Protein backbone atom coordinates (compact mmCIF):
# COMPACT_ATOMS: atom_id res chain seq x y z
CA UNK A 1 0.00 0.00 0.00
CA UNK A 2 2.88 2.33 0.84
CA UNK A 3 4.11 2.16 -2.73
CA UNK A 4 1.10 4.21 -3.83
CA UNK A 5 2.53 7.28 -2.13
CA UNK A 6 6.21 6.52 -1.70
CA UNK A 7 7.15 8.95 -4.47
CA UNK A 8 4.47 11.54 -3.75
CA UNK A 9 5.28 15.03 -2.54
CA UNK A 10 4.20 16.01 0.94
CA UNK A 11 1.62 18.36 -0.54
CA UNK A 12 0.14 15.49 -2.56
CA UNK A 13 0.01 13.37 0.57
CA UNK A 14 -2.01 16.02 2.36
CA UNK A 15 -4.46 16.22 -0.53
CA UNK A 16 -4.90 12.44 -0.36
CA UNK A 17 -5.36 12.64 3.40
CA UNK A 18 -8.15 15.12 2.70
CA UNK A 19 -9.79 12.34 0.71
CA UNK A 20 -9.48 10.02 3.70
CA UNK A 21 -6.66 7.94 2.27
CA UNK A 22 -5.24 6.27 5.34
CA UNK A 23 -2.26 5.00 3.37
CA UNK A 24 -1.33 8.62 2.64
CA UNK A 25 -1.36 9.37 6.36
CA UNK A 26 0.77 6.28 6.91
CA UNK A 27 3.33 7.60 4.44
CA UNK A 28 3.34 11.03 6.12
CA UNK A 29 3.88 9.23 9.41
CA UNK A 30 6.71 7.17 7.95
CA UNK A 31 8.45 10.33 6.76
CA UNK A 32 7.97 12.58 9.76
CA UNK A 33 6.99 10.65 12.88
CA UNK A 34 10.60 10.21 13.93
CA UNK A 35 11.20 13.94 14.01
CA UNK A 36 7.85 14.61 15.65
CA UNK A 37 8.48 12.04 18.34
CA UNK A 38 12.08 13.16 18.85
CA UNK A 39 11.03 16.74 19.48
CA UNK A 40 8.15 15.82 21.79
CA UNK A 41 10.36 13.39 23.70
CA UNK A 42 13.12 15.91 24.07
CA UNK A 43 10.78 18.63 25.30
CA UNK A 44 8.66 16.54 27.62
CA UNK A 45 11.21 14.01 28.83
CA UNK A 46 8.30 11.63 29.18
CA UNK A 47 7.78 8.77 26.78
CA UNK A 48 4.05 8.35 27.38
CA UNK A 49 3.32 12.06 26.99
CA UNK A 50 5.50 12.26 23.89
CA UNK A 51 3.58 9.40 22.30
CA UNK A 52 0.31 11.14 23.11
CA UNK A 53 1.56 14.26 21.36
CA UNK A 54 2.64 12.27 18.29
CA UNK A 55 -0.77 10.65 18.16
CA UNK A 56 -2.51 14.00 18.51
CA UNK A 57 -0.39 15.64 15.82
CA UNK A 58 -1.15 12.97 13.23
CA UNK A 59 -4.82 12.76 14.15
CA UNK A 60 -5.02 16.52 13.69
CA UNK A 61 -3.50 16.14 10.25
CA UNK A 62 -6.08 13.46 9.50
CA UNK A 63 -9.01 15.49 10.76
CA UNK A 64 -7.93 18.91 9.52
CA UNK A 65 -5.60 18.51 6.53
CA UNK A 66 -6.74 21.86 5.14
CA UNK A 67 -4.89 23.61 7.96
CA UNK A 68 -1.60 22.77 6.29
CA UNK A 69 -0.78 25.50 3.78
CA UNK A 70 2.13 24.51 1.52
CA UNK A 71 2.73 28.17 0.77
CA UNK A 72 3.68 28.70 4.40
CA UNK A 73 6.35 26.09 4.90
CA UNK A 74 7.02 22.39 4.64
CA UNK A 75 4.82 19.67 6.06
CA UNK A 76 7.56 18.76 8.51
CA UNK A 77 7.78 22.34 9.71
CA UNK A 78 4.00 22.43 10.11
CA UNK A 79 3.93 19.16 12.07
CA UNK A 80 6.85 20.17 14.25
CA UNK A 81 5.34 23.60 14.97
CA UNK A 82 2.21 21.87 16.26
CA UNK A 83 4.31 19.33 18.15
CA UNK A 84 6.27 22.10 19.79
CA UNK A 85 3.18 24.12 20.66
CA UNK A 86 1.38 21.15 22.20
CA UNK A 87 4.44 20.00 24.09
CA UNK A 88 5.02 23.48 25.47
CA UNK A 89 1.39 23.68 26.55
CA UNK A 90 1.83 20.45 28.47
CA UNK A 91 5.17 21.49 29.82
CA UNK A 92 3.91 24.81 31.10
CA UNK A 93 1.37 23.03 33.22
CA UNK A 94 3.04 23.28 36.59
CA UNK A 95 2.94 19.58 37.37
CA UNK A 96 4.55 18.56 34.14
CA UNK A 97 7.30 21.12 34.50
CA UNK A 98 8.07 19.99 38.00
CA UNK A 99 8.04 16.34 37.01
CA UNK A 100 10.37 17.04 34.12
CA UNK A 101 12.79 18.95 36.25
CA UNK A 102 12.83 16.10 38.76
CA UNK A 103 13.54 13.62 35.99
CA UNK A 104 16.25 15.85 34.57
CA UNK A 105 17.83 16.19 37.97
CA UNK A 106 17.87 12.41 38.37
CA UNK A 107 19.32 11.89 34.90
CA UNK A 108 21.96 14.53 35.49
CA UNK A 109 22.97 12.83 38.68
CA UNK A 110 22.89 9.33 37.28
CA UNK A 111 24.36 9.66 33.83
CA UNK A 112 25.78 13.09 33.21
CA UNK A 113 22.75 13.98 31.14
CA UNK A 114 23.61 15.87 27.99
CA UNK A 115 20.84 17.82 26.30
CA UNK A 116 22.67 17.77 22.99
CA UNK A 117 23.32 14.06 23.01
CA UNK A 118 19.96 12.62 22.15
CA UNK A 119 19.16 13.59 18.60
CA UNK A 120 22.40 14.51 16.92
CA UNK A 121 22.99 11.16 15.31
CA UNK A 122 23.11 11.72 11.60
CA UNK A 123 25.38 13.64 9.28
CA UNK A 124 22.88 16.41 8.76
CA UNK A 125 22.40 16.75 12.48
CA UNK A 126 26.19 17.15 12.84
CA UNK A 127 26.14 20.07 10.48
CA UNK A 128 23.18 21.61 12.27
CA UNK A 129 25.01 21.21 15.56
CA UNK A 130 28.06 22.84 14.04
CA UNK A 131 26.00 25.78 12.87
CA UNK A 132 24.38 26.10 16.28
CA UNK A 133 27.80 25.99 17.90
CA UNK A 134 29.00 28.88 15.79
CA UNK A 135 26.39 31.19 17.23
CA UNK A 136 27.44 33.58 19.98
CA UNK A 137 26.86 31.86 23.32
CA UNK A 138 24.12 34.27 24.35
CA UNK A 139 22.09 33.62 21.23
CA UNK A 140 22.63 29.87 21.33
CA UNK A 141 21.61 29.55 24.96
CA UNK A 142 18.53 31.70 24.48
CA UNK A 143 17.38 29.61 21.50
CA UNK A 144 18.07 26.30 23.23
CA UNK A 145 16.20 27.27 26.37
CA UNK A 146 13.25 28.64 24.41
CA UNK A 147 12.98 25.84 21.87
CA UNK A 148 14.13 22.73 23.72
CA UNK A 149 13.35 23.97 27.21
CA UNK A 150 9.89 25.25 26.33
CA UNK A 151 10.51 28.47 28.26
CA UNK A 152 9.09 31.85 27.35
CA UNK A 153 11.62 34.58 26.59
CA UNK A 154 10.74 36.09 29.95
CA UNK A 155 11.62 32.82 31.68
CA UNK A 156 14.83 32.69 29.67
CA UNK A 157 15.67 36.23 30.77
CA UNK A 158 15.32 35.19 34.39
CA UNK A 159 17.33 32.01 33.89
CA UNK A 160 20.16 33.87 32.18
CA UNK A 161 19.86 36.99 34.34
CA UNK A 162 19.51 39.22 31.31
CA UNK A 163 16.95 41.90 30.41
CA UNK A 164 13.86 40.60 28.59
CA UNK A 165 14.50 42.86 25.62
CA UNK A 166 18.00 41.45 25.26
CA UNK A 167 16.70 37.90 25.21
CA UNK A 168 13.95 38.41 22.64
CA UNK A 169 16.48 40.27 20.48
CA UNK A 170 18.99 37.43 20.82
CA UNK A 171 16.41 34.81 19.89
CA UNK A 172 15.48 36.72 16.75
CA UNK A 173 19.01 37.61 15.69
CA UNK A 174 20.19 34.11 16.60
CA UNK A 175 17.58 32.48 14.37
CA UNK A 176 18.58 34.74 11.50
CA UNK A 177 22.24 34.00 12.05
CA UNK A 178 21.55 30.29 12.37
CA UNK A 179 19.70 30.31 9.08
CA UNK A 180 22.70 31.90 7.41
CA UNK A 181 25.01 29.35 9.04
CA UNK A 182 22.83 26.46 7.91
CA UNK A 183 22.76 27.76 4.36
CA UNK A 184 26.54 28.17 4.45
CA UNK A 185 26.81 24.56 5.63
CA UNK A 186 24.82 23.44 2.62
CA UNK A 187 21.59 22.81 4.46
CA UNK A 188 18.62 24.10 2.54
CA UNK A 189 15.90 25.78 4.54
CA UNK A 190 12.29 25.22 3.67
CA UNK A 191 12.79 21.93 1.89
CA UNK A 192 11.89 18.47 3.13
CA UNK A 193 14.38 17.24 5.72
Amino acid sequence: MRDDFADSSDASLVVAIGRYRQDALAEAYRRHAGAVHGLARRLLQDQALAEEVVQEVFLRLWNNPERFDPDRGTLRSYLLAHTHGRSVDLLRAEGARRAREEREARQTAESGYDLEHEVWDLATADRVRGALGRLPDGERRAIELAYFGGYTYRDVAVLLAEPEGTIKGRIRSGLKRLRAELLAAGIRIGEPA
Partner: protein
Amino acid sequence: MNDHEIEELLGAYALDAVDDDERRVVDAYIATNPRAREEVTLHREVATRLAFSGAPAPAGLWDRIAASLEEQPPSAAVGLAPVTSLLEQRRRRRRWVVGSLSAAAAAVVAIAFLSVEVVHLNDKVERSAAGDPLGRGAVAAMSDPSAHITDLASKDGAYDVTAVVQADGTGYLVPHKLPPAADGHTYQLWGVSGKNVVSLGVLGASPSVVSFHTDGKLDALAVTEEQAGGVAVSKQAPVAVGSLS
Protein backbone atom coordinates in the same frame (compact mmCIF):
# COMPACT_ATOMS: atom_id res chain seq x y z
CA MET B 1 2.81 47.56 21.62
CA ASN B 2 4.17 49.33 18.53
CA ASP B 3 5.26 47.68 15.30
CA HIS B 4 8.94 47.65 16.27
CA GLU B 5 8.17 45.94 19.57
CA ILE B 6 6.01 43.37 17.81
CA GLU B 7 8.71 42.66 15.25
CA GLU B 8 11.23 42.11 18.01
CA LEU B 9 8.95 39.32 19.23
CA LEU B 10 8.86 37.41 15.94
CA GLY B 11 11.71 35.07 16.84
CA ALA B 12 10.32 34.23 20.26
CA TYR B 13 6.85 33.87 18.75
CA ALA B 14 8.14 31.35 16.19
CA LEU B 15 9.52 29.26 19.05
CA ASP B 16 6.31 29.45 21.13
CA ALA B 17 8.26 31.49 23.65
CA VAL B 18 5.72 34.28 24.16
CA ASP B 19 2.76 34.46 26.51
CA ASP B 20 -0.84 34.18 25.33
CA ASP B 21 -1.48 37.93 25.11
CA GLU B 22 1.64 38.50 23.07
CA ARG B 23 0.79 35.59 20.83
CA ARG B 24 -2.57 37.14 20.01
CA VAL B 25 -0.93 40.47 19.20
CA VAL B 26 1.57 38.81 16.88
CA ASP B 27 -1.15 36.64 15.33
CA ALA B 28 -3.04 39.78 14.36
CA TYR B 29 0.11 41.54 13.16
CA ILE B 30 1.34 38.80 10.85
CA ALA B 31 -2.16 38.30 9.47
CA THR B 32 -1.85 41.68 7.78
CA ASN B 33 1.91 41.86 7.29
CA PRO B 34 3.26 39.40 4.70
CA ARG B 35 6.88 40.30 5.39
CA ALA B 36 6.52 39.52 9.09
CA ARG B 37 4.65 36.33 8.25
CA GLU B 38 7.47 35.28 5.97
CA GLU B 39 10.00 35.94 8.72
CA VAL B 40 8.06 33.71 11.11
CA THR B 41 7.89 30.99 8.47
CA LEU B 42 11.66 31.14 8.00
CA HIS B 43 12.30 31.03 11.75
CA ARG B 44 10.10 27.95 12.02
CA GLU B 45 11.91 26.25 9.16
CA VAL B 46 15.19 26.88 10.98
CA ALA B 47 13.69 25.41 14.15
CA THR B 48 12.61 22.39 12.10
CA ARG B 49 16.26 21.72 11.38
CA LEU B 50 17.10 21.95 15.06
CA ALA B 51 14.52 19.27 15.75
CA PHE B 52 15.89 16.98 13.07
CA SER B 53 16.17 13.41 14.25
CA GLY B 54 17.05 10.24 12.44
CA ALA B 55 15.54 8.12 15.18
CA PRO B 56 12.31 6.33 14.31
CA ALA B 57 9.13 6.71 16.32
CA PRO B 58 8.50 3.89 18.80
CA ALA B 59 7.24 0.60 17.43
CA GLY B 60 3.51 0.15 17.76
CA LEU B 61 2.67 3.85 17.82
CA TRP B 62 1.39 3.87 14.26
CA ASP B 63 -0.82 0.89 15.02
CA ARG B 64 -2.44 2.84 17.83
CA ILE B 65 -2.99 5.83 15.58
CA ALA B 66 -4.44 3.67 12.82
CA ALA B 67 -6.72 1.95 15.32
CA SER B 68 -8.02 5.29 16.57
CA LEU B 69 -8.77 6.30 12.97
CA GLU B 70 -11.01 3.27 12.70
CA GLU B 71 -12.72 4.13 15.96
CA GLN B 72 -13.18 7.74 14.94
CA PRO B 73 -13.84 8.08 11.21
CA PRO B 74 -13.25 11.57 9.80
CA SER B 75 -16.93 12.23 9.26
CA ALA B 76 -17.55 12.07 12.98
CA ALA B 77 -14.29 13.59 14.12
CA VAL B 78 -13.89 16.81 16.08
CA GLY B 79 -12.40 18.65 13.13
CA LEU B 80 -15.12 19.69 10.75
CA ALA B 81 -15.16 20.92 7.21
CA PRO B 82 -13.21 23.85 5.88
CA VAL B 83 -15.55 26.57 4.73
CA THR B 84 -14.78 28.29 1.46
CA SER B 85 -16.71 30.51 -0.89
CA LEU B 86 -17.36 29.39 -4.44
CA LEU B 87 -15.43 32.35 -5.80
CA GLU B 88 -12.36 31.55 -3.76
CA GLN B 89 -12.64 27.88 -4.54
CA ARG B 90 -12.30 28.66 -8.21
CA ARG B 91 -9.21 30.72 -7.50
CA ARG B 92 -7.51 28.15 -5.40
CA ARG B 93 -5.42 25.35 -6.74
CA ARG B 94 -7.31 22.37 -7.90
CA ARG B 95 -5.89 19.93 -5.43
CA TRP B 96 -7.09 22.00 -2.50
CA VAL B 97 -10.55 22.45 -3.94
CA VAL B 98 -11.08 18.72 -4.19
CA GLY B 99 -9.92 18.10 -0.65
CA SER B 100 -11.98 20.90 0.80
CA LEU B 101 -15.16 19.87 -0.92
CA SER B 102 -14.77 16.30 0.21
CA ALA B 103 -14.35 17.47 3.77
CA ALA B 104 -17.28 19.85 3.50
CA ALA B 105 -19.50 17.05 2.28
CA ALA B 106 -18.33 14.88 5.15
CA ALA B 107 -19.25 17.58 7.65
CA VAL B 108 -22.74 17.74 6.27
CA VAL B 109 -23.06 13.99 6.65
CA ALA B 110 -21.76 14.20 10.21
CA ILE B 111 -24.09 16.91 11.35
CA ALA B 112 -27.07 15.15 9.82
CA PHE B 113 -26.99 12.95 12.90
CA LEU B 114 -27.81 15.88 15.15
CA SER B 115 -31.41 15.73 16.26
CA VAL B 116 -33.46 18.86 16.63
CA GLU B 117 -36.17 19.21 19.22
CA VAL B 118 -38.13 22.24 18.12
CA VAL B 119 -40.03 22.78 21.34
CA HIS B 120 -36.83 22.74 23.34
CA LEU B 121 -35.21 25.16 20.91
CA ASN B 122 -38.17 27.49 21.12
CA ASP B 123 -37.71 27.73 24.86
CA LYS B 124 -34.01 28.37 24.48
CA VAL B 125 -34.56 31.06 21.87
CA GLU B 126 -37.17 32.83 23.94
CA ARG B 127 -34.77 32.94 26.88
CA SER B 128 -31.76 34.07 24.86
CA ALA B 129 -33.60 36.57 22.67
CA ALA B 130 -35.49 38.29 25.46
CA GLY B 131 -34.80 42.01 25.44
CA ASP B 132 -32.95 41.94 22.13
CA PRO B 133 -34.35 44.18 19.38
CA LEU B 134 -34.10 41.34 16.88
CA GLY B 135 -35.29 38.84 19.40
CA ARG B 136 -38.98 39.26 18.59
CA GLY B 137 -38.25 38.55 14.95
CA ALA B 138 -36.36 35.43 15.91
CA VAL B 139 -39.13 34.22 18.21
CA ALA B 140 -41.75 34.90 15.54
CA ALA B 141 -39.68 33.03 12.97
CA MET B 142 -39.49 30.06 15.33
CA SER B 143 -43.27 29.78 15.26
CA ASP B 144 -43.34 29.77 11.46
CA PRO B 145 -44.23 26.16 10.54
CA SER B 146 -42.34 26.41 7.26
CA ALA B 147 -39.12 27.63 8.86
CA HIS B 148 -36.06 25.41 9.21
CA ILE B 149 -34.58 25.41 12.68
CA THR B 150 -31.28 24.01 13.87
CA ASP B 151 -28.95 24.07 16.81
CA LEU B 152 -25.35 24.85 15.92
CA ALA B 153 -23.27 23.18 18.55
CA SER B 154 -19.71 22.13 19.08
CA LYS B 155 -18.89 18.63 20.17
CA ASP B 156 -17.53 19.78 23.52
CA GLY B 157 -20.57 21.89 24.28
CA ALA B 158 -18.60 25.13 24.47
CA TYR B 159 -20.60 26.68 21.64
CA ASP B 160 -24.35 26.61 21.27
CA VAL B 161 -26.32 28.76 18.84
CA THR B 162 -29.82 28.33 17.40
CA ALA B 163 -30.54 29.32 13.82
CA VAL B 164 -33.89 29.66 12.11
CA VAL B 165 -34.29 30.15 8.36
CA GLN B 166 -37.67 31.06 6.92
CA ALA B 167 -38.92 30.09 3.47
CA ASP B 168 -38.16 33.57 2.08
CA GLY B 169 -34.51 33.24 3.10
CA THR B 170 -34.72 35.44 6.19
CA GLY B 171 -32.69 33.95 9.00
CA TYR B 172 -31.89 34.64 12.62
CA LEU B 173 -29.01 33.46 14.70
CA VAL B 174 -29.55 33.35 18.46
CA PRO B 175 -26.44 32.68 20.56
CA HIS B 176 -26.89 30.77 23.81
CA LYS B 177 -23.25 29.94 24.48
CA LEU B 178 -20.79 31.87 22.34
CA PRO B 179 -17.69 33.07 24.22
CA PRO B 180 -16.26 36.39 22.98
CA ALA B 181 -13.87 35.91 20.07
CA ALA B 182 -10.20 36.52 20.78
CA ASP B 183 -8.86 40.06 20.43
CA GLY B 184 -8.69 41.02 16.77
CA HIS B 185 -11.06 38.22 15.77
CA THR B 186 -14.69 37.93 14.76
CA TYR B 187 -17.23 35.20 14.27
CA GLN B 188 -18.43 34.55 10.73
CA LEU B 189 -21.49 32.65 9.52
CA TRP B 190 -21.38 30.30 6.54
CA GLY B 191 -24.06 28.47 4.60
CA VAL B 192 -23.50 25.01 3.12
CA SER B 193 -25.52 23.93 0.11
CA GLY B 194 -24.41 20.67 -1.40
CA LYS B 195 -20.75 21.14 -2.12
CA ASN B 196 -20.97 24.93 -2.00
CA VAL B 197 -20.03 26.96 1.05
CA VAL B 198 -20.73 30.71 1.09
CA SER B 199 -20.32 33.46 3.65
CA LEU B 200 -23.60 34.70 5.13
CA GLY B 201 -22.09 37.47 7.17
CA VAL B 202 -19.52 38.67 9.67
CA LEU B 203 -21.04 38.50 13.14
CA GLY B 204 -18.63 40.50 15.28
CA ALA B 205 -16.62 39.41 18.28
CA SER B 206 -19.49 39.09 20.72
CA PRO B 207 -22.72 38.86 18.78
CA SER B 208 -26.19 38.87 20.25
CA VAL B 209 -29.16 38.00 18.02
CA VAL B 210 -28.32 38.67 14.37
CA SER B 211 -30.34 38.42 11.19
CA PHE B 212 -29.11 37.23 7.83
CA HIS B 213 -30.46 36.40 4.41
CA THR B 214 -29.81 33.48 2.16
CA ASP B 215 -30.80 32.73 -1.40
CA GLY B 216 -31.81 29.17 -1.98
CA LYS B 217 -31.97 26.12 0.21
CA LEU B 218 -29.17 25.40 2.65
CA ASP B 219 -28.12 22.02 3.98
CA ALA B 220 -26.22 23.36 6.94
CA LEU B 221 -24.89 26.42 8.72
CA ALA B 222 -21.46 26.83 10.26
CA VAL B 223 -19.80 29.46 12.43
CA THR B 224 -16.05 30.06 12.31
CA GLU B 225 -13.76 32.40 14.20
CA GLU B 226 -11.76 34.62 11.86
CA GLN B 227 -9.51 37.65 11.84
CA ALA B 228 -11.47 40.86 12.42
CA GLY B 229 -13.24 41.95 9.25
CA GLY B 230 -13.91 38.39 8.15
CA VAL B 231 -12.50 36.43 5.26
CA ALA B 232 -13.60 35.43 1.77
CA VAL B 233 -12.31 31.93 2.31
CA SER B 234 -11.86 30.29 5.67
CA LYS B 235 -9.18 27.87 6.68
CA GLN B 236 -10.56 27.55 10.18
CA ALA B 237 -12.49 24.57 11.42
CA PRO B 238 -16.01 25.67 12.38
CA VAL B 239 -16.61 26.22 16.07
CA ALA B 240 -20.22 25.16 15.62
CA VAL B 241 -22.21 23.47 12.86
CA GLY B 242 -25.90 22.69 12.48
CA SER B 243 -27.85 20.79 9.83
CA LEU B 244 -30.88 22.25 8.08
CA SER B 245 -31.60 19.05 6.15
